[in-house]
């Protein structure tokens, strides 16, 4: 049990997906202009990322490895993720139109979020078991959401700041992300590995 808690803590804070592993940066820069959209994107990504690490683990263990098709891993995973995103969209639209309004426009974007494919590939690379894979996916998504929401809140303030001309917009946002990354370095050593 303690092991699992450590995996979760480690992926959320120490090896944060965005700030130390550089995964999922496109949505991190792209949808962080407003707090509400950031929350929506975070929720949608958490859902898909957890499911995708589960599905890709099953695919890898029970289909690719027995058939010795490991070299098709990239193609297989991206197909799974795309299908999962599509099903999630249909499911959410059917079950809760309100939730669909919130998450709808973010779902298609998740297919090309490298965090989802990245976590699936990392699970294979580190030979994670079933529970570890799912926890790793869930933790990574939590870390992503945490950083995305915090960053969006900072950027809303940043709009009001007086920034030198060439730094307006994206450059200052990147420098801010650098400072956040620096702050997250402080968590290293909290969990070994």
């Amino acid at each position, binding site marked *: 049990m303690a092991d699992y808690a450590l995996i979760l803590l480690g992926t959320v804070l120490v090896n944060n997906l965005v700030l130390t592993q550089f995964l999922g940066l496109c949505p991190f820069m792209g949808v962080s202009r407003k707090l509400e959209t950031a929350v929506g994107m975070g929720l949608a990504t958490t859902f898909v990322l957890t499911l995708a690490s589960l599905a890709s683990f099953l695919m890898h263990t029970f289909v690719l490895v027995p058939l010795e098709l490991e070299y098709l891993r*990239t193609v297989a995973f*991206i197909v799974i993720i795309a299908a999962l995103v599509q099903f999630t969209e249909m499911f959410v639209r059917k079950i809760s139109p309100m939730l669909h309004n919130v998450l709808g426009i973010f779902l298609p974007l998740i297919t090309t979020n490298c965090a989802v494919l990245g976590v699936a590939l990392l699970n294979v690379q580190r030979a994670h078991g079933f529970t570890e894979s799912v926890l790793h996916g869930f933790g990574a998504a939590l870390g992503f959401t945490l950083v995305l929401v915090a960053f969006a809140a900072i950027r809303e303030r940043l709009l009001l700041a007086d920034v030198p001309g060439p730094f307006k917009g994206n450059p200052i946002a990147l420098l801010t992300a*650098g400072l956040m990354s620096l702050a997250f370095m402080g968590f290293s050593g909290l969990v070994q590995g």
Partner: protein
Amino acid sequence: MSVCSAGLWRNNPGLVQLLGLCPLLAVTSTLINGLALGLATLLTLLVSNTLVSVSRGWLRPEVRIAVYVLIIACAVSAIELAMNAWFHGLYTALGIFVPLIVTNCTILARAETFASRQPVGWAMVDALAMGTGFTGVLIVLGGLRELLGQGTWLAGAALMFGPHADAWTFSAGDAYPGFLLAALPPGAFFALGLLLAAKNWIDRPVAAQAAPALTADS
């Protein structure tokens, strides 16, 4: 001509569109890593743009995105296998960022916005221009961070160009203490932020000159 300048500078995928940020920041701890991933991305872009442009006549619009993703994924898998066979050292150094070329938004964006509407020749030119622009940013960022962080230049060139390339490596000597921040993740964010600001600063005089000319005409 404008297609080339768009890819190389005006609409550079790395600096202006901010697409493909993950590899841009993740692999640029050394120049050689950046160059290797840049070339792999360039090759993928070339293959996918060509195939997308060829298939644009008979592909049904409803399924086009799925087909594009499959084309890209197949191209990346082939490149991944080739790299593993011939450049194994580089392949291990780049880690999961080789398969992650699939989710580099630049490639899908070029397929959707350019290659699906243009003849094959132009699609290939666009792929070369965009790929070179992206590689250029990777090289600049990688060179900068390597020089600042470790005080070396072209370290590990042998992985790419064969054993004789070891002589190319420049080193500032043991006296250089190394600037750890530049090699760590925060350094990547800072370096790209400064690079973007530099590009804005270079472009500024052009905008200032163009604006008065317009008002004078009207």
